[in-house]
């Protein structure tokens, strides 16, 4: 394909949006952040993780949603049911669990020792006789609306969610349904605390226009080539507030002669691409899914599936990986990344994974080392608007829907066409 074959100027239109400058306010306004707290994060279904993280009965994990000041305890009870609760003791509201995960039939509050089952029921109260009129049945942990969908654990912080998960996902649910998730039980977990609005870093992982410029040596030559120098998209699709794009990959990429360690790392391990840790063969069912590389091109690097508001599910020849963009203030973000890799069985596989991780961390460092500069530029107030090109349509779509949710008094209004 030649470069101009990729010129479509249609993604923006497909997203139902108009070209033209996009306001920068949602990236820098503390007042807008308050609306995001109540109306975006407070009312959306949020992906908290996967069921494999709490595989065993009575296992649990704690996840923080800083923007909503919520600490969320997600448990699997003795019957195997997955349920989220506020991680808050009913007695005097101490945060109940302090470790990130655990496994035990009773969860004891470290303040006065109230004990709860993994089903959230209150099971033990020291010196219970002195609590006049205490009814254990009404003093269990506060439940949070929870749904498990294709192994993903979703929660909704509204006491009574205005929209069902099924309606929230809409056609995006059909698009992603029944995907296989290879190595879902073995994530590499990465975290960065960043000095930028959460949408600044989410944007950095929603377009490939930046790749040849900010990642010239790490992945520039894997995501671009003479036939697509500026990372134009192969495909983009929009589903209500959710979005998808497919990125170009250079099928000719090989390590250079001087890259001896890279050659050694990949020499006896068959992965789906040069920058992957998945094993060829074990990826077949995953790669056969119609929404993984949907254009079925050889020139494919990865797809981005962005689940509104803050979760990015990426697929590539070597498997899947995820990003969570958790706002911690209007200009800070906790960015969490998980790369799902096979369990290394041999020394060579393990060495390849170390090289793979070293490289993807360098790529992340290239991305996230730039975001504070973007935020400073935004906050300088020098400019009112950003110019977005057609291949940045996912960013335009993101701003549009975040603003729409922030403006809408009801979820029905936010989700209306």
């Amino acid at each position, binding site marked *: 394909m030649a470069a101009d074959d990729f010129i479509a100027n249609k993604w923006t239109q497909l997203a139902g949006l108009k070209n033209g400058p996009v306001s920068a306010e949602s990236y820098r306004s503390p007042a807008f952040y308050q609306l995001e707290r109540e109306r975006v994060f407070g009312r959306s279904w949020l992906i908290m993780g996967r069921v494999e993280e709490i595989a065993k009965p009575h296992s649990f994990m704690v996840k923080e949603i800083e923007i909503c000041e919520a600490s969320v305890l997600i448990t699997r009870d003795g019957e195997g049911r997955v349920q989220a609760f506020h991680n808050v003791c009913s007695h005097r509201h101490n945060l109940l669990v302090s470790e990130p995960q655990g496994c035990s039939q009773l969860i004891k509050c470290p303040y006065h020792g109230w004990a709860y089952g993994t089903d959230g029921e209150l099971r033990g109260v020291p010196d219970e006789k002195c609590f006049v009129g205490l009814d254990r049945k009404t003093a269990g942990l506060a439940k949070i609306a929870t749904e498990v969908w294709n192994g993903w654990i979703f929660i909704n912080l509204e006491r009574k969610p205005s929209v069902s998960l099924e309606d929230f996902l809409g056609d995006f649910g059909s698009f992603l349904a029944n995907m296989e998730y290879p190595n879902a039980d073995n994530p590499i977990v990465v975290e960065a605390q960043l000095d930028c609005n959460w949408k600044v870093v989410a944007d950095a992982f929603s377009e490939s226009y930046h790749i040849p410029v900010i990642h010239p040596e790490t992945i520039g030559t894997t995501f671009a080539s003479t036939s697509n120098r500026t990372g134009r998209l192969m495909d983009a699709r929009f589903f209500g507030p959710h979005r998808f794009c497919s990125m170009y990959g250079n099928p000719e990429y090989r390590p250079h002669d001087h890259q001896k360690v890279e050659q050694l790392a990949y020499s006896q391990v068959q992965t789906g691409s040069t920058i992957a840790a998945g094993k060829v063969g074990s990826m077949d069912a995953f790669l056969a899914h119609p929404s993984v590389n949907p254009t079925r091109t050889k020139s494919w690097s990865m797809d981005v599936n962005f689940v509104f508001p803050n979760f990015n599910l990426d697929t590539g020849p070597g498997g899947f990986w995820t990003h969570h963009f958790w706002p911690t203030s209007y200009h800070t973000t906790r960015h969490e990344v998980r790369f799902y890799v096979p369990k290394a069985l041999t020394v060579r596989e393990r060495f390849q994974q170390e090289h793979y991780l070293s490289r993807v961390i360098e790529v992340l*460092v290239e991305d996230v080392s730039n975001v504070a500069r973007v935020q400073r530029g935004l906050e300088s107030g020098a400019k009112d608007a950003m110019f977005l090109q057609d291949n940045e349509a996912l960013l335009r779509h993101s701003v549009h829907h975040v603003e729409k949710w922030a403006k809408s008094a009801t979820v029905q209004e936010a989700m209306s066409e």
Partner: protein
Amino acid sequence: MNNSLLPAAFADLEAHVAEWALPSFDARMQHRAASSMDNIRRFYDAMQPRAEAALAHLENFPLDALPAAEQRLMHMLYALAQAAMAVEIHGQPKVGHAKLPIAVRVLREPLPV
């Protein structure tokens, strides 16, 4: 009792153990990012020609139960992957516009560590 830091065949690399055979991904990554290019290259030039032999040697042991000397050699290989980021990719110790310490932290590494 053998008190060698590395398996006998790799004794020539012992001078690099204290600096590079670090037991976590973050430690190796931060160390490489904060090192001078000369320093990284000295380690790379010593370790890279021995990497194939090191992998071949380590293949004789169970991956999840390496003896102490072999475990150090494995960590030296992991450090070589880090050195390769500087030597084979960036041509400088770290991403040019990144600040030290590097903001990205690995909370759960590939296993076994």
